[in-house]
């Protein structure tokens, strides 16, 4: 792995005991982020993408068990950190931005209070310094008359402004890594574009690594450097953003891209592609490719498939038995509609 990585995770697994057995929502995934890089983890509900981020933050539900071959963040081994040391990292060097801006701010404290609190907990500085930093960051995230906003309560702000405040809060201690879990799903399109814009700008300005978790392929294409497509707790395809979108290799990735109407590409009223079937139950012993029950190319061999990704150079890899030539040939034949 490249040495510029700030976070390196190998073979991360999450297991949760449930009434009917052991649930395996995350089943051995690897990822890494380097400074200034954006990794997008994309997948549908239940694919384990949110639990992956919570596992990195050490915020899994109490009953969940986390195992990994490696979880290094800037020289710290996250696996062995105690809760207190982990708490120092959270909000300090790793920050998280959640989906719901309405509930992630405490309604009974002012914006200024909440921003300052994060800062004072992690950085030994005066209140005045905290205030200055809060004003500086609020202006950065595009909140007008930031000074006077400090005294306002969350309910006085709109959803978009709250998410901006959340971003400012995440940046208060100058984190090295930001994990954003569906940061714009609850927002309107115009606000979504604005927020992503701010996020991308600040990430480059401060040279932070970012893990963005989303189900929206549009967002992924526009902000990601690296993409990781998750299905049923595993990475089915990963690689540089352009490679994955230009030449998706895994049938699931291809299916997802066929599902969305794309202005200018899909004809109005034409039938959209779909991925029939549903996500498999992840309880108990699982083996083989979990996508095989929904896959049009599935064969007997898929049930015995080992997770050995087919690597294509340039970091693009996918976990499927089909040969790259076969997929490429088909794409040619289909006239590049994929």
């Amino acid at each position, binding site marked *: 792995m490249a040495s510029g990585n700030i976070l390196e995770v190998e073979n991360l697994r999450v297991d949760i005991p449930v009434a009917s057995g052991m649930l395996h929502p995350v089943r051995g995934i690897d990822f890494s982020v380097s400074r200034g890089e954006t990794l997008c983890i994309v997948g*549908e509900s239940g694919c384990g993408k949110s639990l992956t981020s919570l596992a990195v933050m050490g915020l899994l539900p109490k009953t969940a068990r986390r195992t990994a071959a490696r979880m290094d963040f800037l020289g710290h081994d996250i696996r062995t950190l105690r809760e207190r040391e982990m708490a120092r990292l959270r909000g300090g060097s790793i920050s998280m931005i959640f989906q719901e801006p309405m509930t992630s701010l405490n309604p009974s404290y002012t914006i200024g209070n909440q921003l300052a609190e994060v800062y004072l907990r992690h950085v030994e500085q005066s209140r005045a310094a905290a205030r200055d930093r809060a004003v500086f960051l609020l202006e950065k995230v595009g909140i007008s008359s930031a000074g006077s906003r400090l005294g306002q309560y969350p309910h006085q702000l709109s959803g978009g402004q709250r998410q901006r405040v959340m971003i400012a809060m995440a940046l208060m201690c100058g984190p090295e890594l930001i994990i954003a879990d569906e940061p714009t799903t609850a927002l309107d399109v115009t*606000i979504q*574009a604005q927020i992503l814009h701010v996020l*991308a700008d600040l990430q480059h300005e401060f040279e932070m690594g970012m893990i963005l978790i989303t189900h929206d392929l*549009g967002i992924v294409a526009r902000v990601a450097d690296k993409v990781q497509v998750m299905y049923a707790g595993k990475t089915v395809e990963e690689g540089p*953003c352009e490679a994955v979108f230009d030449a998706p290799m895994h049938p699931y990735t291809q299916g997802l*891209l066929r599902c969305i109407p794309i*202005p200018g590409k899909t004809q*109005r009223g034409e039938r959209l592609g779909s991925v029939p079937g549903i996500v498999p139950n992840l309880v108990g012993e699982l083996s083989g490719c979990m996508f095989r029950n929904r896959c049009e190319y599935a064969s007997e061999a898929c049930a015995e498939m080992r997770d050995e990704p087919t690597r294509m150079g340039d970091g693009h890899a996918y976990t499927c038995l089909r040969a790259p030539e076969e997929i490429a040939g088909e794409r040619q034949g289909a006239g590049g509609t994929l």
Partner: protein
Amino acid sequence: MTEAAAALETVDVTCVFHVGQGFLRGAKPLRAVNGVSLKIPQGQVVGLVGESGCGKSTMANILLGLQKPSSGDVLYSGNSAAGFSRRQIARRIQPIFQDPYSSLNPTKTIESIVSQPLKIHNVGEPSEWSAKVAEMLDVVGLPRRVASSYPSQLSGGQRQRVAIARALVMRPEVVICDEPTSALDVSVQSQILNLLQDLKEELGLTYLLISHNLAVVQHMADRVAVMYLGRIVEEADAQTLFNDPRHPYTRALLGSVLTPDPRLGVPDTHLGTVFPNPIDPPPGCSFHPRCSECMEICRSRAPRPVADGGHETECHLYGNTGGQDRHVAHND
């Protein structure tokens, strides 16, 4: 103007809510819908787009007869709403909601949910209902076995199909789809869109598609109306609107659509960050605080709609609309 009456039409509809400002402070009027005239022609899909809080949902409620407009009228096939009871409206217009988790009563079986409209309107014999339900389940692509299940046993996509079956069991003319796919996963979303498309052709339905997802609207709609703070600021047929958006707000909306193109970055919408308070709307054009092309006149005078061959825009950039002469805009 002499063509067949639209399946559904609003004429200068306004809906004012009185919002309490707290104890002893009295209520202030909120114009959720402010003078909207919208035609939904028979057999077409009209898209209504706008941000949350722009009045889309109030419009849906008014069309469904659940909310009485403060002024203006709703025309059902050209006849005033005054002549219809709520039950008669219910037979013509049915809704499909966004969240399939809250739109089905968790204590009822699928069969009783889908047959409920038949029961309420005394259609046919109770003995025929389960056959009718089975037929509807076929129509929306659900296995007949789900009839005896409860909503909590179904996935989001399956529930949305049940909601569609319930809406269609009475064979309404118009279906109001309020964000029908935004709570669903990508792979399920396309199945529901395909289903809606098929049903429209097979049953000759008319849709009002309310959505903030412009890609979906562009895919489905024949005509599109853009709403901002209770007003329709631009309306045209889909082709025209998406190829030649005029209102700065429409352009910002279209600019915000994130197509999965890895070569493009996140677009800059050029919109301000201030979202105006609908209780206290800004003077002049209500969009001017966020507009990148704001002129002097926009701050003081509200624009009037200007029509250009079926393409209506309400913006000072297009023609001198601040004058005394009131443009009457009815071209189609």
